[in-house]
């Protein structure tokens, strides 16, 4: 498995990119090149130099430091949103599969359809508009939209497992639906969930960037990639580095996570792996 993983180019590149940003976020807890709150207005909008490897923003803050701390915001929002989505979505999906065709199944799946029916960003904007813009509300807004994704995926995968012989055996042995779901179904959908979790993680980072771009994500002075882009947009012709570097950060992180998701799927799915050989 590990050898297979190492030969999977998408997985290796994706993992490397993701680790760079997770690493940057972790390092920022103990060390950043410069204090992100420290403004140095006479040195604003300076292009990259030795003192500021990625230049300074319109308040003279160090862009490298802001991207590092911004990674923290993005990752925290996306991780918690995925946890919310999995934590609620997976049990719902398992329950719906266990009681296939029942009223419970109908309620859960139609509820999913309802959430899916609205464009996610629009609802996220609505939630933050009503409860006030903050990183917490961004997490909740993004998390809610992860629930149906995981619920649907889990139900679909679990339904086919419920017809397997070992599940039948477990039923004959007198195990209840909850126990079967936990002991036999869940372990067998984990691979799928990890792959989907990676994809949702990258979508969460994009959503957080979009929300903070329109001013509904983390509020200043907490650095955030989306707001760095928003702040730089009227200055793009004067100081393009202010837009390029946070933009690259978003692009590379999302690309890395998607490659990682693809790589993991190849790795976990034996059929695809065999085809490749």
């Amino acid at each position: 498995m590990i050898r297979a993983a190492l030969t999977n180019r998408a997985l290796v590149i994706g993992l490397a990119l993701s680790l760079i940003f997770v690493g940057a976020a972790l390092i920022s807890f103990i060390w950043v090149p410069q204090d992100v709150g420290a403004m140095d207005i006479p040195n604003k909008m300076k292009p990259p130099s030795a003192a500021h490897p990625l230049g300074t923003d319109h308040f003279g803050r160090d862009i490298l430091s802001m991207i590092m701390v911004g990674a923290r915001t993005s990752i925290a929002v996306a991780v918690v949103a995925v946890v919310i989505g999995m934590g609620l979505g997976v049990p719902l999906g398992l329950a719906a599969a266990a009681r296939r065709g029942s009223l419970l199944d109908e309620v859960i799946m139609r509820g999913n359809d309802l959430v899916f029916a609205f464009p996610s960003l629009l609802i996220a904007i609505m939630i933050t508009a009503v409860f006030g813009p903050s990183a917490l509300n961004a997490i909740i807004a993004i998390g809610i939209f992860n629930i149906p994704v995981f619920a649907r995926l889990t139900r679909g995968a679990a339904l086919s497992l419920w017809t397997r012989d070992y599940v039948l055996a477990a039923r004959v042995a007198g195990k209840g639906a909850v126990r079967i779901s936990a002991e036999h179904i869940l372990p067998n959908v984990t691979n799928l969930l990890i792959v989907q979790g990676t994809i949702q993680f990258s979508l969460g980072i994009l959503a957080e960037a979009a929300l903070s771009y329109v001013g509904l994500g983390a509020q200043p002075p907490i650095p955030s990639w989306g707001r760095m882009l928003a702040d730089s947009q009227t200055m793009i012709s004067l100081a393009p580095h202010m837009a390029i570097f946070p933009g690259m950060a978003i692009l590379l992180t999302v690309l890395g996570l998607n490659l990682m998701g693809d790589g993991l799927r190849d790795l976990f799915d034996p059929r695809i792996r065999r085809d490749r050989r």
Partner: protein
Amino acid sequence: MTYVNFTRGMVSALALVAGVGIAQAKTDIVVGMQLEPPHLDPTSAAAGAIDSVLYANVFEGLTRFGPDGSVNPGLAESWEISEDGTVYTFKLHEGVTFHDGTTMDAEDVKFSLDRARAEDSVNAQKALFAGITDVTVVDPLTVQVTLAAPNGAFLFNMAWGDAVIVAPESIENIKTNPVGTGAFKFDNWVQGDRIDIVKNPDYWGEPAKLDRATFKFISDPTAAFAAVMAEDVHAFAGFPAPENLPQFDADPRFQVLVGSTEGETILSTNNKQAPFDDVRVRKALAHAIDRQAIIDGAMFGYGTPIGSHFAPHHPDYVDLTGNSAYDPELAKSLLAEAGFPDGFSTTLKLPPPSYARRGGEIIAAQLREVGIETEITNLEWAQWLEQVFTGKDFGLTIVSHTEPMDIGIYANPEYYFQYDNADFQKTMADLTAATDPAARSALLKQAQEKISADYVNGYLFQLAALSVANAKVVGLWENAPTQATDLTAVYWQD
């Protein structure tokens, strides 16, 4: 006959070809603005965006502001002031009609003033009319206004957009269909997009040079930049992104107008909320702020530092910036003295303009240096008006007070920053009663010094009037002595 027709055809064909070569001077203009008015009645709302569209263009008052802030005759061609200074007799222009065809006469003046000063009036600047005890129609072209006491600023007050003359016939629908006496008529309002005004052919004074003007509302600074660059708008009054001005300046297609406004940009402080009810805390705030850094960082250098609530271009201005020089150490010791050696936290609620959003981030960083933590909340204008201006639910906020000569707001303890000081209120009462220019000047200086010494608010800078226009547009106001985009003298150069 055939021959004649042929020649005619040739002539018009030639004219067509020539028309392409020699461009006709344009007679229409598209003016970009950041804020859209909530409705179109300047006499019942504080929103400056209403005056930005309608003042001088559609609505006129007895007197009016000139581009330099001087008070000139408007609908009143002349006036006489009684010996004791309490009775003003206005002689109105003859033959003035409203856009709906009805005549403007002394009855309309009486109606407008009585409506503005009535008990149930919703005028945003009721103080302008507070001294009026009686308005009498002498004859259709003469109206007499009696004041309770002499008021040296009365003619100035009558020039405000809140004091324009409206007609009783059209008052009902004024919010959507404003009917005034100006050189332009209101034509159309596409909400969220634009307002069109067209030339009033029956205007009593110098007719407008343009046939049509469109005010286009573009709130996003990037979109504003793109619209001007693409020449979709021909002028942008109050351009929201000062960082783009050098670029326009370098481009021969555009002209950049940098003037002064009446906008005192202040860090408004809730004087009734602890700990800001302690003057030492407010003094600490004032000394913790580095104005030049805010002007450079938020406004890219456009703006003049102020030390009180008074416009630097005014003859009675006193430079009080020394009272609140940047001194973080002094700020810290003042905070310790007031019982906050470790600082405190408060809210900083910011309306949309970039001076507030960017200035707010800089101020938050500066206050953090002395131990004051601020929780920044970015608000849209409607939320800001509701929470801060009306609800008084805030610790700190940043806003530019763009009304001319508005130091009087400090005499109103109900005003949102809630400064309640009997001495200051007396100074303002004395000012209203004073007619002698020297006495008025002394009182105005005293008033500036009082609020500066009390550190009522953090005084930041005088907002610069930044406008971008097509290089061929002539006649726009460079300064902004009041909220207005006066297009009556604007034309296109060939």
